[in-house]
């Protein structure tokens, strides 16, 4: 993941995408935030789709994480009174991952957006490997 960094507002980063918003009927630059906000934990990574694919593959592969850690991340978190941490209709929530169903299959996902104009969605489906119609 050589193209993934904590955002540097002032740094020169080749091929950095710009963010846009519609405002007053026109496409305009996304909102500007300084380094303090832009480098925050919830919005502060600059990356590429191919780097995120490497991250996803590593998550599902043996070696990067202990199986128990992955299971804990992808198990609905519960409060001390036994209730799940997330409430309907939000589905369930593990450690940093939303846990849901889509078409009757488990899906783990996370996404995000910021008024700088950038948005992200990353659903991962738990499916038998031989069910993919990728050759079609």
């Amino acid at each position, binding site marked *: 993941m050589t193209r993934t960094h904590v955002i540097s507002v002032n740094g020169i980063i080749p091929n950095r995408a710009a963010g846009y918003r*519609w405002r007053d009927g026109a496409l305009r630059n996304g909102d500007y935030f300084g380094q303090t906000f832009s480098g925050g934990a919830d919005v502060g990574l600059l990356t590429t789709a191919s780097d995120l694919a490497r991250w996803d593959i590593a998550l599902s592969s043996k070696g990067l994480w202990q199986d128990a850690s992955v299971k804990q991340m992808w198990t609905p978190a519960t409060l001390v009174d036994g209730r799940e941490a997330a*409430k309907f209709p939000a589905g369930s929530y593990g450690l940093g991952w939303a846990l849901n169903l*889509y078409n009757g299959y488990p899906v783990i996902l996370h996404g995000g957006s910021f008024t700088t104009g950038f948005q992200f969605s990353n659903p991962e489906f738990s499916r038998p490997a031989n*069910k993919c*119609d990728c050759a079609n």
Partner: protein
Amino acid sequence: MIVLTNQHRAKPSQIAYGVIGLYDSDLLAPHRRRVEADHRPELRDKVSAFLAALFTGNDTAAFVTPGLLNHMPAVPKSPANQMFSTGRPDVTFIASEDIKQRGIERYSTKLAEARYY
């Protein structure tokens, strides 16, 4: 599936679910499924009644499993929640699928069938 967008009104989740359905027919978006005959219309009516109860802050216990009921927040009765005050919402059946073999448990209940409306 990974979708990154740089326009604030983009809907990356919708893009992600739309694209994944092109690669895996089992993950085709529900609204793009072939419409089937509904052999259990009483369930459609139950879904409609559930939604009406949910969004008007009325008791939903008769419509859901005990496990899901425990997962649901209390919805206050207020004018803002009277979305369906004039009646039940229209619910249209699309398709159903037997999913018993997938071994999925949701809110302490094993899932047998997925129904798309």
